[in-house]
């Protein structure tokens, strides 16, 4: 059998020829020259919203020559939290991942700082609100970029007709479409009287007192309106303070006018309450209204989203931002940062807001007056005040200003709503406070 031998001379000739070809050939940039990027985005409730985000990401990927793969991860059953926990444990997974509220702080050690891109986004889009600073920053380190997709305010969504009929309040006059609020009279006492009147009228306010986020967020905004915090910004226990006593007293008093089964409510209960036509007010982003628009248009046409009632220490509304974060073990950090900048451009943000029918809220102040909120209806202008365009209220999150890792425990364990339910069900104030103090002491442990 003929066997071709590779001589030294032949080897040298071949390698020289190959090297010459390689150097002399023209450079052709491949379709994915900038590498691969794996991202995990929040799986949106609103049909069609994911399609828009896919289109925006793909547009960027084509321009930047990056091979992107997107996973839409639902928050249903806390699948997104499980993904975050698993990837943090394995130190492997997506390059960029959408994290809700507390999670950037919880995984701070494993996140790539975004200090190089946040200043340019702030310069372009305006300042971010205080809650985003609180949740998205650790010292001087930006833990991620506030995401438009999934960020929401849980303000009141009121039945115009029922509130007028039973409580004599014209909510559209207090929060006119296209104009600044004239809501000085919309206070805690007005709210309490309205809650009582609507309860008597058979259409109670649909406020949950359960352990899920909708209930906790509402309780948190009420507590903050009284200046009540269980732990202060320094991490000191402040459970047994006058402010907490006032807030608890008020919340337990008003809770008696909520549906009797409110302690068992979850995040879907208030939505169903509004859509069924049995309630005069809930605290929610426009998802419940959007469902009503589809299933019960006559109810949707009577809904008006507006600001929170003001308490002795101001007017607070729950704001729950999502963040886009880059893992420190990401394989393609430059591409991830480039994508985050692209996703935060005004044109992209506008698309996200429109695709979500106004549900998603950007955290930058120059982007809270997009036309979607002004034009959505019926009734037209129902969402005008949803993104807080006039900074009429302070956007905050329950359990703040405690250090986020402690606040996360207070929030998750629903300590605030449990306090309200305990006191409402007859437990003496001091015993409720002692229970809460014991719980929070546990959260303070290192």
């Amino acid at each position, binding site marked *: 059998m003929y066997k071709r031998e590779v001589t030294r001379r032949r080897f040298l000739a071949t390698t020289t020829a190959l090297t010459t070809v390689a150097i002399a050939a023209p450079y052709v940039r491949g379709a994915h020259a900038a590498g691969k990027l794996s991202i995990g985005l929040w799986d949106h409730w609103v049909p069609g919203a994911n399609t828009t985000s896919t289109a925006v990401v793909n547009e960027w990927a084509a321009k930047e020559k990056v091979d992107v793969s997107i996973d839409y991860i639902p928050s249903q059953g*806390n699948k997104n*939290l*499980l993904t975050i*926990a698993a990837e943090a*444990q394995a130190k492997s997974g997506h390059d960029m991942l959408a994290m809700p509220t*507390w*999670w950037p702080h*919880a995984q701070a050690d494993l996140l790539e700082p975004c200090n190089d891109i946040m200043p340019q986004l702030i310069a372009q889009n305006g300042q971010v609100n205080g809650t985003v600073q609180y949740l998205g920053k650790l010292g001087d380190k930006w833990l991620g970029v506030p995401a438009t997709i999934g960020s929401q305010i849980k303000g009141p969504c009121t039945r115009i007709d029922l509130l007028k009929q039973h409580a004599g309040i014209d909510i559209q006059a207090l929060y006119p479409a296209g104009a600044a609020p004239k809501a000085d009279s919309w206070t805690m006492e007005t709210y309490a009287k309205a809650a009582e009147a609507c309860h008597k009228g058979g259409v109670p306010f649909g406020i949950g007192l*359960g*352990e*899920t986020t909708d209930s906790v967020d509402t309780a948190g905004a009420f507590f903050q309106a009284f200046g009540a915090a269980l732990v202060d910004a320094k991490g000191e226990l402040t459970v047994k303070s006058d402010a907490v006593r006032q807030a608890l007293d008020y919340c337990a008093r008003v809770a008696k006018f909520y*549906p*009797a*089964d*409110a*302690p*068992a*409510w*979850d995040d879907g*209960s208030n939505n*169903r*309450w509004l859509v*069924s036509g*049995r309630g005069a007010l809930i605290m929610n982003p426009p998802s419940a209204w959007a469902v009503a628009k589809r299933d019960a248009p006559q109810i949707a046409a009577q809904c008006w989203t507006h600001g929170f009632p003001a308490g002795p220490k101001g007017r607070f509304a729950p704001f729950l931002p999502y963040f886009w974060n880059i893992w420190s073990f990401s394989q393609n950090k430059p591409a991830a940062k480039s994508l985050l900048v692209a996703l935060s451009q005004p044109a992209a943000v506008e698309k996200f807001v429109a695709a979500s029918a106004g549900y998603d809220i950007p955290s930058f102040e120059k982007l809270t007056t997009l036309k979607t909120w002004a034009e959505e209806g019926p009734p037209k202008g129902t969402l005008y005040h949803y993104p807080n365009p006039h900074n009429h209220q302070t956007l905050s999150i329950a359990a703040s200003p405690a250090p986020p*890792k402690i606040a*996360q*425990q207070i929030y*998750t*364990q*629903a300590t605030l709503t*449990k306090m309200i*339910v*305990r006191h409402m069900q007859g437990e003496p104030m001091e015993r409720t406070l002692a*229970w809460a103090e*014991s*719980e929070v002491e*546990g959260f303070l*442990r*290192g």
Partner: protein
Amino acid sequence: MVDTALSSNATTSTRVRAKARPSGLRKFLQRKSTIAFFMALPLILLILTLVVYPAFYAIYLSTLRKSMTSVAWMRNCQWLPDAICGYIPFGNIQFLFTRETFWMVVWQSCLFAISAVIFKALIGFIVAHFVHNIPAKGQRKWRGMLLIPWVIPPAMSTLAWLWLFDPSYSAFNYALSAFNAGPIPWTGNANWARFSVILVNIWVGAPFFMIMYLAALKSVPDQLYEAAAIDGANWWQRIWYVTLPMMRNIIAITALFSTIVTFANFDIVRVLTAGGPLDKTHLFATWAFRIGIEGGDIPLGASVSLFMVPILAIAAIFILRDITKRGNEA
């Protein structure tokens, strides 16, 4: 030639000897136990990867502090010898012992598991007898139908129960209102919420008992009943002196298996009440998830979930010891 012939004979006899007495390795590989081991090896590796490794990892996690950067040593343990106090990484367990909610979860888990298993066993036993007495022709149909609650994934069937128990739009309350009764706060009141989660667990788990007991009933020889009948035994005596002794091991093993599964239940409580109201329906698994995953305190969550191990181990030891004892007596 002679030499060659001799040498050839010698080689042949050596080969025969070699054939007659295989090498040690070959003998080892041909052993039934070795073959069995190799056949079971994939499963053993799977168990090591998916069960043993996570279990040890969970133990490791439970020894860490909340920050997961250092070990959670015990504190205030002067009652222990100095050599031990300060060197035991069970600070999380020690912390749990000081929590009111932890003891509530212990009590609720025991209440949930014991009451659910007792009712499942009782219902399973009764239904198994009914099905056993159905003529063979129609029995398969009934067996199939009765197994449905057990076959449907619990998370799905619990969703249906969630709607039936819905605080505001409960179908049960709607039905009760027809009799001027109710409304009952199925998941809003602690006692009713506990009742609800136990009821759903019984609904899901009773068919498993039924099918196990049915299999056991079918294996009881008819002659024993005939002998009992000749002796004049009534229905109750036949059950007490024939059926139950013959089913004791199956009853014990089924109860043990169900206790473990019920005690570690997650999906029913998670879907139906998420542990509320006021944590009054939390079990170990749901509370561990709340603390570890939702609350971001993975070490404490791991400690809570590990707490199931000693409790279940004690139950298993007692029940299995009883079975072994009876086996030896037989």
